[in-house]
């Protein structure tokens, strides 16, 4: 099929996705309700592979626990990888229930990343129903150990050890439909720990504990000048310290990220933050240490790259406005290995409330465009759309 023939088939692809609505939504609900903290994704991965086994997909897991399904093509030397993360941030003491209403699905982290995994699981069935047989192998990866400190380990390890040549990669995120990421921001993920030393001198330093010096560190980090161009930001993501209002906090932890389009700027800010932590630690008498546990260099494809062009054509064909911006996601695992790749979204969605960071809602109707988008991209990449960039 030519590119324009594939794009002309988008309404049919959407129709097939609609036919598979029950399976797709059941996948979302059942996968979403399986707890999968990083490192213990095996139940969710097993479920994912069981679904793939409905089609003629060769299924396996690797040593990290990632689930790998390969829909074999006619030319075993060519591989296209569609990947998503299998782990989620839902804690094991949280109510995991997912609710399906007429127009939307609500549940803890349903947008991160149950929908994407469910859509991947239905992709072989959708292609099969269209009677499509690819020339390339279509590799469907539910990567384990991706989030937080795992730092995309599952995908990086998979790409490092995959025996064949990967022709192109597609990172599948649940939301938002229309996103088209082809560049990655540089990223440093760090943790600062302030801790009372064992020999803390109460008489000399008082009883302020570790929260006060941590707040001083935060205040100083906030005073670091970050430019708008190149785009740079410092995100204070999570803080934890103390156990009650009347006890002294022995330890306070801060998780944060530095993001920038410039690798040089990233390095400058890193040094500045390290200096701040050292200064405040020395002045307060606390043990203050900093650890950067994840690093990604900035970089990516040009907007004129054939893969970006065809992904944009697919979105336009679906009458979805492309949203192009740099990402901090696992796209960089592909890009840093010189594999052309983009990140796409499956549907639209939002957090349930501003302050509620767990329950998310995704819309049902756009999902079918999301699956059609994946079908079209698989076909276009199979036809060589990512080549020659």
């Amino acid at each position, binding site marked *: 099929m030519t590119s324009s023939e594939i794009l002309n088939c988008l309404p049919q692809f959407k129709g097939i996705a609609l036919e598979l609505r029950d*399976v797709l*939504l*059941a996948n979302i609900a059942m996968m979403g309700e399986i707890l999968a903290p990083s490192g213990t994704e095996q139940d969710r991965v097993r479920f994912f592979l069981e679904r793939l086994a409905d089609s003629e997909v060769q299924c396996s897991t690797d040593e990290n626990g990632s689930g790998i399904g390969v829909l074999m093509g006619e030319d075993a030397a060519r591989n296209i990888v569609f990947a998503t993360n299998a782990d989620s941030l839902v804690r094991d*003491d949280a*109510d995991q*229930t997912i609710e399906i209403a*007429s127009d939307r699905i609500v549940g803890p982290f349903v947008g991160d990343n149950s929908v994407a995994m469910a859509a991947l699981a239905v992709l072989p069935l959708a292609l099969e129903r269209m009677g499509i047989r690819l020339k390339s192998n279509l590799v469907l990866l539910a990567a384990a150990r991706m989030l937080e400190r795992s730092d995309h380990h599952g995908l990086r390890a998979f790409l490092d050890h995959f025996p064949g040549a990967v022709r192109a990669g597609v990172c599948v995120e649940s939301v938002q439909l229309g996103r088209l990421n082809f560049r990655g921001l540089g990223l440093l993920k760090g943790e600062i720990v302030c801790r009372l030393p064992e020999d803390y001198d109460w008489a000399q330093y008082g009883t302020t504990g570790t929260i006060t010096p941590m707040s001083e560190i935060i205040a100083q980090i906030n005073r670091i000048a970050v430019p708008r161009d190149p785009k740079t930001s410092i995100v204070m993501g999570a803080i934890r310290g103390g156990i009650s209002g009347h006890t002294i906090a022995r330890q306070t932890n801060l998780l944060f990220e530095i993001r920038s389009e410039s690798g040089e700027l990233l390095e400058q800010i890193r040094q500045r933050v390290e200096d701040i932590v050292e200064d405040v630690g020395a002045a307060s008498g606390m043990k203050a240490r900093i650890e950067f546990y994840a690093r990604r260099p900035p970089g990516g494809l040009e907007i004129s790259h054939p893969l970006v062009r065809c992904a944009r054509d697919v979105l336009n064909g679906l009458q979805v406005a492309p949203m192009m911006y740099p990402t901090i996601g696992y796209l960089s695992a592909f890009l840093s290995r010189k594999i052309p790749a983009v990140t796409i979204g499956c549907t639209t969605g939002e957090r349930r409330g501003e302050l509620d960071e767990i329950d998310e809602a995704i819309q049902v109707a756009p999902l079918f465009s999301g699956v059609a988008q994946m079908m079209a991209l698989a076909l276009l990449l199979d036809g060589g759309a990512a080549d020659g960039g």
Partner: protein
Amino acid sequence: MAAERERSQGVDDARGAKQSVSGRIRDWLGRNTFHYSEFSDLRALVRDKEARGLTISLCIPTLNEEKTIGKEIVVFRSELMTRFPLVDEIAVMDSGSDDRTREVAADYGANVYMAADILPEMGARRGKGENLWKAIYQLRGDVIVYVDADIKNIRPHFVYGLIGPLIRRPEVSYVKAFYERPWVTSDGVRPSGGGRVTEILVRPLLSLFFPELTALIQPLSGEYAVRRQVLERIPFPIGYGVETAHLIDVYYRWGLDAFAQTDISQRVHRNQPTRDLGRMAFGILQTFFSRLDSLGLAAELPDRATILRQFLVRDGVHEQQEYDLKEEERPPMIDVPAYRARRGLLP
């Protein structure tokens, strides 16, 4: 006294020896208690179902279940119709929800019925038992599976685990689910508990009067699969007593071996307040005593009141709250002329 009753209920085993209730329960548990995983090869189960020429209907009785009904329909349709054609129809039998239950169920492809619209000449009653009874008339299956609509952790094994014994064991007619019942509280999920009415009311009553029925781990579970030949021949209390009545009636007519039970593992639903359970217990007791009466197991029972009184304290004064809970019963469906006509049975 209890031991004497148990001895008097002993039956001859194959060697002609009397077998104790405990022994019979042990044998039955060994033969007729399953785990859903024994039926998880759905391809094989569908093959066996087709070989036996069975049709299977799934009925979900509802009243204001918009939060959970969508997922139940989607999961059952996906797993038991689209992927594996084990179930032939999925029906929602609604008591008149005033939320979006019927709309959500219909959106996801269930056949949605208002119980009041079925057999209108028989009138309309409000109660789960009414919905279950009218499903016998409305649905086509040789087997009807009933699943409550308030299950938060719904999975296909809630259905195939109950159908399996009926497909594989022709002598079994009535399969009940049992499960661990972690309560859901606002804080999250507790690991175990539940079944208060079972443990402090129903099990003691069964132990007193029908000790073999104590073999059923969850006699009140709302999930069961039953052959039509049995369903159409038993009366249906329309309220809380429906499960209890089924147990006693099926036991009396077909014996313990007509039953099987399947471990469904875990069922998460909202915990009911104790006051609601009091009303449930009242309905169950009415049914129980009516069965004792009709079976002649208790001589000269007095007339029984239908008012349950519960109390609230307002400004230091105890206020009565009266609930008139009369456990009405529907007759065996096979005695209903419209049903006989619909099924092509002789009048």
